[in-house]
């Protein structure tokens, strides 16, 4: 280690050390897949269906192939026609998408082929020369229409309901009868888009003589991408190398292999091994990546006078679009998250995931929990009001507690939810403000949420691995399969490795997400990386440390059990005396007498039980995270405009590995939640095409209008978590819409049940309220 050791970075866990990739990013040096340019690189374009639903009669590619500059054209005929999907382990029948469709197209944009040419202009010209004959079929865009028996049949199944997920515990009918107050509510949440700043992009190259493929990808889950490529291309895992480049945001949209990834590989092969790059433009991004499910939530629940929830019943209808993608688990999460938060004995909610001839719904940050959070947390406020109870008191009465097993067998160990609620309400001034600012049209609302850290969604295991390598000069490498998509996992994992190894964070470099050289990891989803990969990283660093200590023990005739490395010193733990510094110990390992390489390895699989998707039972996560969020709003009753004055987010994150990153996740989640509450609404036209699929018409939160946010970090030090940490990348988004809705109700007494909250909805609701008041007076 020739560079000076930075003493500020000793014991890095718990410190806001700078991002490991920060300097590269702010200088423009960091390479995203988008930035890759190779010699002789071809540009690929997808051949897409112009129809929402049609049979493919024939595809004539001859004119396109004859166009000068075109190097390859592929259709389903060039493939093995193997279907893929994302819930193979639990829902094998939902494996329903072909890398290139051969018989039918199911939405405008559906992929039936691809071209590769010397430049983009030629590739686009070639697309015009593809002659496809279709037999157009009737189509259906609306999810409730699609559920009818008379609706056009989108897949070869009994109907368009791809998944029914019934969750039923206790005796809800009896419990509702015994309840003191029962109410029914209907909520609508729209489709939305991840809208990562970097669109989907990949570069693929096939090696002619070794039949090996390399894919440079913008992926949240490079190992899952490899698995799907291997399956659909019929290749061995070790003949496909997926290299995750810097990823310009994912938010669930980059969890799966898309037909573009598959096509780039196949086009490269057909073009004799020339590299092929496919970049989505923003329009394609909205049309043919993945989107958030629009969900209809019907709830009927009852409470007792003392505030105890008697039963929750209902239906969840999720608009799935043309294929299943991660839909089944999104649907499950849209129901199951409630068990983490509320102690419930009686619940009967049935979920339906329905095909429509629209862009494919998949994972988006929060996995159904955002839609559910809005519905349930609004509904809970209304139940509390029905019995005249303060919404905070109501929640405190019903929330889950530490060290409990829920009715569906979630094993909750640490649980800071009560503290989250108390700290959030105290900091926000709940008792002083709630219900007391109506004259100013101001109000305050609360929402709470729970989160998993991992969920075994697509495999029977959810392991992560790590390799921690100490070089001869004492510099350190962490190899991890985890995919940093901007959340800062490379930084957090490096902090964890250095903490365990007992060295400064300035020693480490991180190599992540390369399927040929890093250990396996299922990817960045379900807020799992800090928790699961963090644990794997501790084990790898500990292994490396033990290798060093073994040499020191031997050299000095000491008992290895009494040795440790802390703050750059090898110490005797009996009296904390320093034996030698880290550099000396490493030098000893690599010395003439020992010559021992220091390569630590770790593997971790959380202690969970898979969910039984017939019942909803199972302990899905190794630990659970919690939070309480409060919004304070002011409504302009003339214009319908709503201003968020401030938001507070108290979050049980176990332990903040990097407090600044944790705050960044909270603030970013809230911004996304605020966007979904007020402006984000991906609409579809009569043919199921995005009606506002660009940044001019799909509005995202911008800097003007960003409200102040106060993060309150609650550290419950989870015994399962790495240094006590829990995952936390998603939960802050879940209660945002409801906290705002509840605040609006407090301010002006209107209840908005359909997102997003546009000014016209506010004005309409105010009109209705006035009419109702007049009627009541009369």
């Amino acid at each position, binding site marked *: 280690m020739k560079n000076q050791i930075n003493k500020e970075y000793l014991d890095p866990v718990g410190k806001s050390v700078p991002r490991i990739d920060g300097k590269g990013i702010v*200088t423009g040096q960091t390479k995203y897949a*988008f930035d890759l340019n190779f010699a002789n690189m071809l540009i690929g374009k997808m051949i897409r269906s112009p129809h929402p639903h049609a049979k493919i009669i024939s595809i004539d590619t001859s004119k396109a192939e004859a166009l000068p500059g075109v190097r390859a054209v592929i259709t389903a005929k060039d493939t093995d026609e193997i279907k893929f999907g994302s819930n193979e382990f639990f829902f094998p029948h939902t494996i329903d998408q072909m890398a290139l469709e051969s018989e039918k197209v199911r939405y405008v944009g559906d992929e039936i082929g691809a071209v590769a040419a010397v430049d983009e202009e030629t590739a686009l010209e070639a697309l015009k020369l593809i002659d496809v004959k279709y037999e157009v079929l009737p189509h259906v865009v609306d999810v409730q229409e699609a559920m009818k028996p008379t609706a056009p049949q989108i897949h070869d199944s009994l109907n368009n309901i791809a998944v029914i997920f019934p969750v039923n515990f206790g005796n809800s009918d009896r419990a509702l009868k015994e309840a003191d107050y029962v109410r029914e509510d209907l909520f609508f949440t729209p489709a939305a888009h991840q809208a990562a700043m970097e669109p989907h992009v990949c570069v693929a190259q096939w090696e002619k003589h070794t039949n090996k493929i390399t894919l440079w990808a913008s992926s949240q889950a490079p190992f899952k991408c490899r698995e799907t490529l291997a399956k659909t291309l019929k290749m061995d895992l070790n003949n496909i190398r997926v290299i995750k480049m810097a990823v310009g945001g994912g938010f669930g949209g980059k969890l799966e292999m898309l037909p573009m990834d598959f096509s780039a590989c196949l086009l490269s092969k057909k073009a004799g091994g020339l590299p092929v790059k496919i970049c989505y433009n923003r329009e394609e991004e909205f049309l043919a990546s993945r989107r958030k499910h629009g969900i209809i939530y019907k709830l009927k629940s009852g409470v007792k006078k003392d505030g105890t929830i008697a039963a929750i019943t209902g239906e969840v209808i999720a608009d799935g679009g043309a294929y299943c993608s991660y839909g089944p688990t999104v649907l499950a999460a849209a129901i199951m998250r409630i068990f983490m938060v509320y102690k419930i004995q009686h619940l009967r909610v049935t979920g339906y995931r329905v095909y429509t001839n629209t862009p494919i719904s998949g994972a988006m940050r929060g996995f159904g929990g955002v839609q559910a959070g809005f519905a349930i947390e609004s509904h809970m406020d209304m139940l509390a009001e029905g019995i005249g109870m303060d919404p905070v008191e109501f929640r405190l009465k019903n929330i889950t507690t530490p060290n409990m097993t829920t009715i569906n067998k979630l094993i909750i160990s640490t649980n800071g939810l009560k503290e989250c609620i108390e700290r959030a309400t105290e900091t926000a001034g709940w008792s002083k403000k709630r219900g007391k600012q109506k004259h100013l049209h101001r109000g305050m609302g609360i929402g709470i949420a729970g989160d998993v850290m991992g969920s075994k969604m697509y495999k029977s295991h959810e392991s992560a691995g790590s390799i921690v390598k100490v070089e001869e000069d004492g510099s350190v490498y962490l190899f991890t399969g985890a995919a940093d998509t901007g*959340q800062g996992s490379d930084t957090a994992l490096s902090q964890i490795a250095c903490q365990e190894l007992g060295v400064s964070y300035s020693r480490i470099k991180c190599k992540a997400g390369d399927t040929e050289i890093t250990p396996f990891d299922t990817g960045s989803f379900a807020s799992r990386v800090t928790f699961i990969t963090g644990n794997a990283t501790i084990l790898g660093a500990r292994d490396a440390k033990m290798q060093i200590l073994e040499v020191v023990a031997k050299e000095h005739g000491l008992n290895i059990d009494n040795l440790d490395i802390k703050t750059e010193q090898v110490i005797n733990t009996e009296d904390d005396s320093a034996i030698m510094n880290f550099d000396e110990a490493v030098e000893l390992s690599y010395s003439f007498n020992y010559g021992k390489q220091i390569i630590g390895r770790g593997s971790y699989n959380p202690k969970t039980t898979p969910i039984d998707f017939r019942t909803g039972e199972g302990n899905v996560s190794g630990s659970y995270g919690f939070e309480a969020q409060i919004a304070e709003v002011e409504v302009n009753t003339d214009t319908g405009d709503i201003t968020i004055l401030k938001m507070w987010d108290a979050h049980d994150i176990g332990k903040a590995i990097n407090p600044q990153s944790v705050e960044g996740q909270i603030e970013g989640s809230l911004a996304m939640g605020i966007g979904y509450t007020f402006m984000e609404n991906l609409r579809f036209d009569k043919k199921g095409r995005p009606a506002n699929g660009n940044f001019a018409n799909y509005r995202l939160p911008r800097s003007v209008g*960003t409200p102040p946010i106060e993060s309150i970090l609650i550290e419950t030090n989870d015994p399962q978590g790495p240094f006590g940490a829990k995952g936390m990348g998603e939960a802050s988004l879940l209660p945002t819409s409801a906290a705002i809705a509840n605040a609006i109700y407090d301010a002006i007494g209107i209840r908005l049940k359909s997102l997003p909250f546009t000014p016209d909805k506010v004005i309409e609701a105010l009109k209705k309220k006035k009419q109702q008041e007049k009627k009541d007076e009369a």
Partner: protein
Amino acid sequence: MTILTINNKEYSLELKGHETLLEVLRDHLGLTGTKTACDDSECGACTVIINGKSVLSCITLARDVEGDKITTIEGLADGEELHPIQKSFVDTGAVQCGFCMPGMIMSAKALLDKNTDPSQEEIKQALDGNLCRCAGYLKIFEAVEQAGKEMRNEKSN
């Protein structure tokens, strides 16, 4: 032949005429720090500075900026020494995925070069054309304020 002055360096280019500055930077010169995210003048990821003003390179024809002083993200740091804005964006944790960052930093620079002590409202206005999907803007505002402070200190020294 078109001669462009980028980061104090002159580049001679054979252009067809319709190329945007963004295309030229990324595809012809390999200056990939400037990003394409919407290609439709809505997101600000392609922001560069031309003659002191922040400009969207996706809607600027390269031939129209011949003779102008163009600065991209690659032209900010002095060797290993980061520009105060770059440093503050790292130090405050404003950076997440980073894809919007080059554009965001260039918009911040155009603001701070004129006024090192902007109000919070002026910062918000100056950055309103730059979309960020990760960070929720608050740490970005903090970064701009901190950089302004540092730039003021540098001036007074």
